């Protein structure tokens, strides 16, 4: 199952986002930061039927840690939809979320120096 069966680059998602997330307005994923990092916990879904194809794709991407924005971009879905899908995965214990404040309350001087050198070397 490739994403091409589900998504059409030109026409946008074939499945209407509203349908993807069951028309819900609120979700535990609503406040996920754009650069919050998502990693799979390694747990298996209790029932494969609970997982939509988009969520299965998210689990693949998050196997190696991915940000919310990267996931939205890779799935070609709008951020709000991705947040809902991620919230559900988090509720099911399938992904771990690290908000930026937890990742780097204030990035350390060491990290910033690394970024400066990295940018210069681009």
């Amino acid at each position, binding site marked *: 199952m490739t994403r091409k069966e589900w998504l059409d680059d030109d026409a946008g998602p074939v499945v209407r986002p509203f349908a993807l997330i069951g028309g819900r307005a609120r979700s535990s994923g609503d406040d996920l930061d754009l650069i919050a*990092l998502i990693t799979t916990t390694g747990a298996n879904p209790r029932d494969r039927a609970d997982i939509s194809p988009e969520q299965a794709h998210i689990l693949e991407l998050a196997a190696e840690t991915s*940000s919310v*924005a990267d996931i*939205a971009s890779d799935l070609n879905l709008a951020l709000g939809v991705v947040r809902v899908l991620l919230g559900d995965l988090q509720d099911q214990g399938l992904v771990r979320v690290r908000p930026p404040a937890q990742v780097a309350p204030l990035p350390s001087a060491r*990290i910033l120096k690394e970024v400066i050198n990295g*940018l*210069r070397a*681009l």
Partner: protein
Amino acid sequence: MAFAPSDEPVALKILVAGGFGVGKTTLVGAISEIRPLRTEEVLSDRGVGVDDLDGVETKTTTTVAMDFGRITIREGLVVYLFGTPGQERFWFMWDELSYGALGAVVLADTRRLTDCFPSIDYFEQRGTPFIVAVNCFDGAERYEPDDVRIALDLDPDLPVLLCDVRRRASAKVVLVTLVEHALKTLTATQR
């Protein structure tokens, strides 16, 4: 989960702000792998009465494209660039975008200098480290960075530089200047 905290992946966020047409999208594209990203804009029907007790407010959403780029410094250290949408109706996104941001590049065009005032005010108020990069358009009169600093009433230690965002080398200098400024701000507050 045997990773020490320092081994955990780090994601950093840099914002690119400034008025419409100043070169935000061009800057992000010049320096990073640009990626498609869309967010929803809720166009709620406020006029249709305030009777939303049942929670079924009539809402229409449209999706808007955002500037989004990523620069991989090394495995486990990624810098994300986000363009802040210029128009006023997108203010709702700014708080979210600037939360936890390492810093911001405010792009300015000397022909329309006032366009960058809202961005400067915003980052000043939020305490987000920022620099001002004057994008030199062909045919626009050239000003010295200090003239721009005075015109914008900026702090003497706030970096102001001239750039051409179409050129990768120039875009690189802009980002390096910002991160150096963020580093200086960080070490100053830790003292």
